[in-house]
């Protein structure tokens, strides 16, 4: 009886412990992923997560989540899911926009000419992204605590490799996006091409027209679908990762097969003359060891000491890390409303517009009831700061202003 009780209690403690470790790891994973995404977002770019090569200018997505849910997702996860792709429009107008620069001719098909250059190169780099317009991102700083670094959510492999080399799970480091490129089209060139595509698919789009439904409390809610059109993407060829151990100790984490690697030590003064030679040799052998231990990762060691390691990771093929897009509301007849910048829309930034697809809500009713002549001037002054060139009527009735109306009600103290 006592034995079975003791065994059950031990098992319970073990399971609770496992769950606790899992929860801690989940928290760590989501935090690191979010930090990565926030770095990309800090550059006014919407992050792609996980990284992919298969995202292009002209990709069209169906956005069905209500705006407030998208805002929540962006704040919680750091990125917007791109799961409902409905079309890939092959845009034209590259030559007009780039005027022959970056090897873009009349017959250019982007990004194909950079992804698969002709004739195909026989040696790396196998792509021609180096001829595309360049881009740069701020460095990303992160910290890894013991017990959570082995399966980092950050979409690069250098971090677990570095942790393994340092034989620590407690480190901090920086990630620099390297060999970044970008290309895109202006909305004025791309949006009319989306109109042409929408006209050909009007019947399909009409299924996603605006609708009114009751929420859990029985209140009328307005649902509005959008098409999200990618008009610029940012591509990275690799990353440079620097890791510094908070302290060298046990709790080793391995990426792939475990390898015993002696890290660089300058030694005493009598060996100083050979330091440079030895260092280069150690770095070379480290890189070879890493390559053999992690066949999937193209990681080379740039520098190393017993407390730090710097690595360059080259992606086998450049990957899209971020994008810019615009949203167009779908009307009941399957036509599309005016283009609205996605980033501004989901972050509640100023979006001026003189045209809108109808979409009013309870906040619009509150504002109408509040609009005395004096308050109208207050609202107009507020709109000048938050949605320049937007009239009160368009602001009250446009679906894209749902978030801004909530902001106005809050900031102007409407109905309080």
């Amino acid at each position: 009886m006592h034995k079975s009780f003791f065994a059950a209690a031990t098992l319970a403690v073990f399971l609770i412990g496992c769950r606790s470790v899992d929860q801690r790891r989940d928290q760590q994973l989501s935090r690191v992923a979010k930090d990565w995404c926030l770095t990309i977002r800090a550059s006014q770019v919407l992050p792609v997560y996980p990284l992919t090569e298969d995202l292009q200018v002209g990709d069209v997505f169906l956005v069905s989540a209500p705006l407030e849910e998208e805002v929540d997702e962006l704040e919680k996860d750091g990125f917007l899911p791109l799961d409902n792709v409905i079309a890939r429009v092959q845009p034209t107008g590259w030559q007009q926009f780039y005027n022959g620069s970056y090897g873009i001719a009349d017959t250019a098909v982007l990004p194909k000419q950079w992804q698969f250059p002709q004739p195909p190169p026989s040696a790396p780099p196998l792509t021609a992204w180096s001829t595309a317009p360049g881009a740069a991102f701020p460095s990303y700083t992160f910290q890894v605590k013991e017990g959570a670094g082995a399966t980092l959510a950050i979409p690069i492999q250098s971090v677990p490799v570095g942790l393994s080399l340092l034989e620590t799970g407690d480190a901090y480091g920086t990630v620099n996006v390297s060999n970044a490129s970008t290309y895109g089209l202006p909305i004025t060139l791309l949006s009319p091409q989306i109109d042409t595509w929408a006209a050909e698919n009007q019947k399909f789009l009409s299924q996603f027209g605006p609708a009114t439904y009751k929420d859990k409390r029985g209140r009328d809610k307005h649902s509005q679908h959008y098409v999200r059109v990618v008009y610029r993407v940012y591509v990275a060829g690799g990353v440079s990762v620097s890791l510094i151990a908070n302290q060298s100790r046990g709790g080793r984490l391995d990426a792939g097969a475990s390898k015993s690697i002696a890290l660089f030590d300058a030694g005493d003064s009598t060996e100083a003359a050979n330091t440079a030679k030895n260092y280069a040799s150690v770095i070379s052998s480290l890189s070879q060891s890493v390559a053999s231990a992690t066949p999937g990762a193209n990681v080379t060691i740039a520098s190393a000491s017993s407390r730090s390691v710097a690595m360059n990771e080259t992606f086998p093929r450049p990957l899209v890390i971020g994008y810019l897009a615009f949203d167009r509301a779908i009307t009941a007849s399957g036509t599309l409303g005016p283009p609205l910048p996605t980033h501004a829309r989901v972050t509640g930034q100023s979006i001026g517009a003189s045209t809108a697809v109808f979409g009013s809500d309870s906040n619009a009713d509150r504002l109408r009831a509040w609009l005395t002549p004096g308050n109208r001037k207050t609202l107009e002054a507020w709109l000048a700061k938050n949605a320049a060139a937007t009239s009160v009527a368009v602001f009250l009735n446009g679906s894209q202003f749902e978030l801004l109306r909530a902001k106005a009600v809050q900031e102007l103290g409407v109905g309080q």
Partner: protein
Amino acid sequence: MSEITGIPATEVGRVVQDFINDGARQLVVEQAPDGSYTVTAH
């Protein structure tokens, strides 16, 4: 010019009133093939 499209029939009056309150001098109300309305203010 300001324009709002996709207005349900029950909401047209309120949108027109909003434009009038904004000082619009000329309003055009059109019905789309799907039955919704477009209000254009000049």
